């Protein structure tokens, strides 16, 4: 693995390179596949995780814990990122153990990832913030570009793959994406990607387990959410928190 980079000087040398090579856009660092190609020539190569070295949970759980969209690297990146959005703590599991990366994989493979019910006709124009997202990319494409950006930014800033970074470093990377001023993505913007990442994470933590996240309803249990109950007729007037064993939609199938 490369040695820990000098955080102060490294971005400067990167900007210098971009300026010299005519690729600087107002001090913004290029990301995406294009950016990666440049850095492959200039910097030490990241240590790629060997195939099969994934630290994902053993294949003993649900048959849904498999991939229909991501490759393994994308999956590991997603898993690491969502865990920072919703980390494991004294209250219970984080997004990783809750299966959120599987959830996102399954969503991106389907209608939502393909924006099948969205208005996708042109012309495309950025417009004002009050007019909403106006990009031409599908959610699935945008997510992959964002993951690529995470990968490149981590490599450039810390000389390591995102999943290998310390938690605090991962948080710094995600903050840079949330803010967006230091990160340039090809065809979309970092804050839009971050917003989707955060939304997808909360969905995966709290959606019905049939979608692949919220493993064993643990997302619900952490906040005393009873899930799919037929009635609160007898509880609605009660003072104090009523604790009920949660139920999922599968309980309807019994």
């Amino acid at each position, binding site marked *: 693995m490369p040695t820990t980079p000098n955080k102060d000087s490294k971005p400067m040398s990167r900007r210098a390179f971009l300026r010299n090579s005519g690729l600087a856009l107002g001090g913004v660092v290029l990301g995406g596949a294009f950016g990666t190609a440049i850095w492959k020539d200039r910097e030490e190569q990241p240590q790629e995780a060997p195939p099969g070295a994934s630290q994902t949970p053993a294949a003993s759980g649900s048959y849904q814990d498999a991939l229909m969209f991501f490759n393994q690297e994308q999956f590991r990146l997603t898993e690491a990122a969502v865990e*920072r*959005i*919703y*980390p494991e*703590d004294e*209250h219970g599991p984080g997004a990783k153990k809750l299966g959120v990366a599987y959830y996102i994989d399954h969503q991106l493979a389907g*209608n*939502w990832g393909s*924006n*099948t*019910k*969205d*208005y*996708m*006709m042109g*012309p495309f*124009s950025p*417009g*004002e*913030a*009050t*007019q*909403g*997202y*106006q990009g031409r990319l599908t959610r699935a494409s945008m997510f992959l570009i964002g993951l690529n950006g995470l990968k490149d930014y981590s490599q450039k800033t810390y000389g390591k793959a995102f999943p290998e970074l310390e938690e605090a470093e991962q*948080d710094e990377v*995600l903050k840079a994406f*949330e803010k967006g001023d230091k990160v340039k993505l090809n065809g979309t913007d970092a804050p839009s990607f971050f917003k989707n990442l*955060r939304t997808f*994470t*909360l*969905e995966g*933590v*709290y*959606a*019905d387990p049939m*979608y692949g996240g919220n493993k064993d309803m643990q*997302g619900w249990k*952490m*906040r*005393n*959410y*009873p*899930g*799919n*109950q*037929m*009635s*609160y*007729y007898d*509880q*609605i*007037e*009660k*003072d*104090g*928190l*009523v604790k009920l064993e949660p139920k999922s*939609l599968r309980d*309807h199938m019994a």
Partner: protein
Amino acid sequence: MATKLPKVPVVIVGMGWMGGIIAAELAKAGIKTVGLERGKRRKTEDYFMVHDELRYALRYDLMQDLSRESITFRNTSKMTALPMRTHGSFLLGEGVGGSGVHWNGQNYRFLPYDFQIRTKTIERYGAKKIPDGMQLQDWGITYDELEPYFDKYEKMAGISGDKGQNPMVGKRSADFPVGPMKKTPGIKLFEEAAKKLGYHPYMVPSANLADNYTNPDGISRAACQYCGFCERFGCEYGAKSDPVVTVLPVAEKTGNFELRDLSNVMEVLHTGGRATGVRYINTLTGEEFEQPADVVVLTSYALHNVRLLLLSKLGKPYDPSTGTGVIGRNYAYQVNGGGAQAIYEDREFNLFAGAGALGSCIDDFNGDNFDHSNLPFLHGANIRYTQAGFRPIQTNPTPAGTPKWGKEFKKQSLHYYNRILTIGVQGSSLPWRHHYLDLDPTYKDVYGRPLLRITYDFEDQDREMIKFMATKTIAIANEMKATKTQASNTISNYDIVPYQSTHNTGGAVMGTDPGNSATNTHMQMWDAENVFVIGANAFTHNSGYNPTGTLGALAYRAAEGITKYMQQGKGMIG
């Protein structure tokens, strides 16, 4: 080529609340009708898996397919309007029952002030009180004239509410047909606080049945179970009143009504100031049909009604530069903001439970129930605490200043999930000369027809109203025995991204003057007497209330108008 079908007396476009009420009333009067609905049929049994927040609330299972048709939006006419690419600020329905399936069921009557807003404002404050550019206008009907129709609609839908008369609202001829919903501890805290401040709280009139109920049409339905899945969902019990469980079966039982789903109307056909029928496409097969009719009734939601008129070149389009023309005029919305939160460290509430219209509210600062002499705005808002059921993906409340993700976010959102009560504001929206609807010059639907363009923004009127309301909501919150309270008192520009309200109004308003209204008070078009345009498009402004209750009353009155028109065969109904 369109296949020409046999002529029918009445064709109704859109099978939501408005279409359903018209269909039932005409069918009962022995008039044959055909109802066209662009979406699919729905029934209670379809909601077997309805407790699915992701599918219904976030993947918009019951909403319009925007890949086929959307709208465009801009804040001002200086901007280029761009398409609403995904659902946000409002959720347009699709399918049998329309938006009447996915509503919360909060069911108010507009105030007597609303129907005579221009006259009453000038009477009390003088004409100068109405700012330049605000196109305030009377509705052409009074609350008292409409009262019997409110009563009729409420008995059909089984609206639940307090017994007796609240002093802040229009006089009722009868109590609500069903008693009030159950009171939660949060509702009691709000009520006590409001009373202590001298206000007049009452239970939100609710279309979630508080008790088992049989309506005058003989439809029996079971009581609400407070399951917490109303808005954006269908009701698996049929306890939430919607057209599918009330008016549509009544219409179908008569044998006088035929419902055709998957039938998307492209245009109203007309010649010489009379409609001759409609042209529609079967969305499944792509086949095109012409349905001739003596009377055409548009009930496809305010925005779609206006778009159909513009696409059909029926009525004179509104021109904001001169203020003339009527189709597209007086678009208004709903101004929400200025809410306050009561935060509790010492107790938790069962906020996962609830019903869409479960709550308590006050109208002490709605309409003209308070003196506006020294206030920089007109009208007001309904202030309420509701417990609709907090679903976990969308509800992650945290105190102000908490990060949006990470360890602290998780900790705080888990801790506060059942500890924050929010007092909300449903603000009125008044009409302006530069707020309007027209056809977009650039963006098209899947059939190649122009999308409807919305030009709308919040005004100083709205910002001042919200600032004022925030002083009231925080005062109530401060009396609710909370550990701490917080409020926001600003709104900036209208933003189509965050969900606010599916209460789009105006665009083909009713009135008594063809110069500033598209229809008379039976929603019969001045420019085509055999076309009725029924929906919130008729509102000359939007009140500080959810619109459905008032729409229901107007629809029952319009049904009488259509029946009368069928009998006399011609002329405007007086």
